[in-house]
């Protein structure tokens, strides 16, 4: 086979329906691991945990992309091939459909009775009956053409349902548009997360985010300018017997400042009710507690007086956090548990039994030594590096209590707690395109599935000579009506019946 012949063969294989089918199956199959294994894009913490739990299997699965299925080369290969196959399949159909739309229906077949035709007789001249039939068909939006057989029979050939193929093409091209929308979002969109305590503010610059990710062509320097303060945060939990502890209400009252606008505006942001600021949207995605602590050093000097963000670990908001005190000498560090409604069991240790702050306490482990902040390696605010530290002891505190650290290292006091809310701020310039394309896809799909392509024919024979007694009457003609539907499982019986009834009605 020549090279060109081979390429043509390859192209024909790729754009064949069978290949499309196989690629669709492949797409379904390769998506499955993405639902089973935790994914980096949605749950990076679970991924790390999974790899830590399975030290031999984890890295192998990681190397073949099972923790990032939808960004893996093999996943991309499947859907890119599918889209090439799709384009190769539908682009040639555009031309075919374009000329089909402008062509006339083909002539009526010789023998309509073979197609299960209806035949009957009406009074009238064949030309007049054909004209009637054509008028009826045109009224019902059929495309018609008239002609005559060698034996003198006249016919109308009619076709309908071109929108089926139009809808089919619109659907497939809309899928390409959706992919473009997704790509635009991926390249130009960005998304960041930030935790804000009650009373605290945020201004939309890169440095203020806890985490920020943007597409290759997004600009981190030109984020829309705005700032807000989290004035208050309201939470309510189910206290009834059923689904006890389930969240019932989150709402954040936010005061927003925009450049070029006089004064601030106050907004209530809830789940399902994001705040829209220019091209960005601010979503309320989570919340938690920040115990307020005062730490004094060995001389009784206050070295920390702040609310520290703790991260919830379960539905009852058993929360963990770390307190770093670099300004004391030696440096102090604490690992802590915050329990909104405290309980201790042998099995679970200290934990929370209800998400609301009904019975607050913190459990603290204290270390002294070197926090390792000067090593140049950046540290997470949620982990404590105790390599160069020695443990001082463990203690639990309720609000208002304080703990004198062993060896005169200082003291720590729990003065109360604040709430914090976490926000996702995102911009996706491709989403409108994806939405419009999705609506087009559904419209096209519905047309292509609900509209049937049908052909019907009406054939009128020459005038039948009646007996001598009816010489003065108008002649009678034999009329045949038949029809077919292009798709298997469908027919044109209803349409044929309708035309027969109308023709008979007019003849009477």
């Amino acid at each position: 086979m020549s090279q060109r012949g081979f390429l043509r063969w390859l192209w024909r294989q790729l754009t064949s329906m069978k290949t499309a089918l196989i690629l669709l199956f492949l797409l379904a199959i390769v998506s499955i691991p993405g639902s089973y294994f935790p994914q980096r894009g949605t749950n990076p913490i679970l991924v790390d945990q999974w790899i830590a739990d399975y030290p031999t299997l984890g890295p192998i699965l990681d190397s073949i992309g099972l923790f990032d299925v939808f960004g893996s080369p093999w996943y991309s290969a499947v859907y890119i091939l599918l889209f090439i196959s799709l384009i190769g399949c539908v682009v040639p159909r555009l031309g075919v459909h374009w000329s089909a739309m402008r062509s006339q229906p083909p002539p009526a077949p010789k023998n309509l009775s073979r197609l299960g035709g209806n035949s009957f007789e009406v009074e009238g001249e064949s030309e007049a009956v054909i004209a009637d039939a054509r008028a009826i068909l045109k009224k019902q939006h059929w495309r018609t053409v008239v002609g005559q057989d060698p034996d003198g029979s006249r016919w109308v050939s009619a076709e309908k349902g071109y929108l089926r193929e139009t809808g089919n093409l619109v659907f497939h091209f809309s899928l390409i548009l959706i992919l473009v929308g997704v790509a635009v979002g991926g390249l130009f969109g960005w998304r960041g997360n930030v935790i804000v305590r009650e009373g605290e503010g945020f201004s939309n610059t890169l440095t203020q985010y806890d985490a920020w990710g943007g597409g290759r062509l997004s600009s981190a320097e030109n984020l829309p300018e705005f700032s807000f303060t989290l004035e208050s945060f309201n939470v309510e939990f189910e206290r009834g017997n059923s689904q006890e502890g389930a969240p019932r209400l989150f709402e954040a009252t936010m005061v927003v400042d925009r450049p070029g606008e006089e004064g601030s505006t106050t907004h209530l942001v809830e789940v399902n009710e994001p705040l829209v600021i220019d091209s960005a949207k601010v979503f309320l995605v989570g919340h938690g507690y920040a115990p307020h602590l005062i730490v004094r050093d060995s001389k009784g000097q206050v070295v920390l007086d702040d609310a520290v963000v703790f991260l919830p670990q379960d539905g009852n908001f058993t929360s963990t956090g770390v307190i770093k005190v670099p300004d004391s000498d030696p440096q102090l560090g604490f690992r802590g548990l915050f329990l909104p409604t405290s309980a201790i069991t042998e099995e679970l240790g200290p934990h929370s039994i209800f998400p609301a702050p009904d019975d607050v306490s913190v459990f603290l482990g204290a270390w002294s030594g070197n926090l390792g902040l000067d090593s140049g390696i950046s540290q997470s605010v949620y982990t404590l590096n105790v390599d160069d530290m020695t443990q001082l002891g463990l203690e639990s505190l309720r609000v208002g209590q304080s703990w004198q650290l062993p060896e005169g290292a200082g003291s720590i006091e729990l003065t109360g707690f604040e709430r914090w809310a976490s926000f996702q701020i995102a911009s996706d310039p491709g989403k409108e395109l994806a939405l419009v394309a999705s609506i087009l896809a559904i419209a096209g799909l519905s047309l292509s599935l609900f509209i049937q392509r049908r052909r019907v024919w009406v054939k009128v024979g020459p005038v039948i000579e009646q007996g001598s007694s009816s010489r003065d009457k108008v002649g009678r003609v034999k009329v045949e009506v038949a029809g077919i539907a292009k798709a298997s499982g469908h027919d044109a019986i209803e349409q044929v019946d309708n035309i027969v009834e109308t023709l008979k009605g007019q003849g009477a």
Partner: protein
Amino acid sequence: MDFMNSVQLADASNNFVYASMVILFLATISFSVSFAAGRRRVSPVEVSSRRVLVEPSGSQVHEPDVALTQLDPGRRAANIGMSLTWLATGMLLIGVVLRGVWAGRVPWGNMYEFSISSALGILVVFLVWSTQRDLRWLGLFVTIPTLLTLGMAVTVLYTESAQLVPALKSYWLVIHVFAAIIGGGAFTVGAATAGLSLISGKGWFKQLPPREKLEGLTHKVIAFSFPIWTFAVVAGAIWAENAWGRYWGWDPKETWAFITWVIFAAYLHARSTAGWKHQKASVIAIVGWVAFLVNYFGVNIFINSLHSYAGM
């Protein structure tokens, strides 16, 4: 509600669901009796009342209705089955509505409520379709999965009514879940006809409509549900964009909705591919329905998903 306190409402809802299950069980028995009786029939009954032969003389002659001339032992039982199915559907509808009144919201807040609504969805799709054509032979194969769904709902999945978690408080809940319930109901009916097309003509199943007819029916019901499912997915994406800040995030629920969509897309392509139109297409339709079930039960119960708040 001053005439009925909430406990009474809850009991009333549950009683209607139980009553509907009992009636549906009786319907299943009636359909089984009809099915067992049908085995004795020699040839399948072809009902084709649509085609009217017209003699050249102009007088219309209807094809003789086979059922009238031949004594059909299972017909009465099947008719009873259909009537009982209508009754059970009415009871279930009242049960679902009372549940909504009790909760003071749409009754789609947890898996129990989704399940009784899905059972209602299956029955409604079946009954509405049965007004278009004779579907008595299909009754047995629709009432059994519906009964299983209801049984699972009242035993394993039962939850006392409660308010919605904040993420569910949106009118998109109504739009998205309604489309998913109707689409899923139709997929279930389609899986029944697809499954029957694979065994039609063998042994007991000789009485069913012929294979090609069943394949055509499967195609019709899936052609109906596929755009609805597409709409459910798109509506879910719009809602997700509003609630979570992204319209598509490959959450397990989204992934399986996508897998289901892709498999049914494959089904529709198979129906117009030479060599794939028949048995293979029917198998694909069943696989698609299995993916739908995985999404509904598997993801809600076994996988950690953003949709897992749908309480159990």
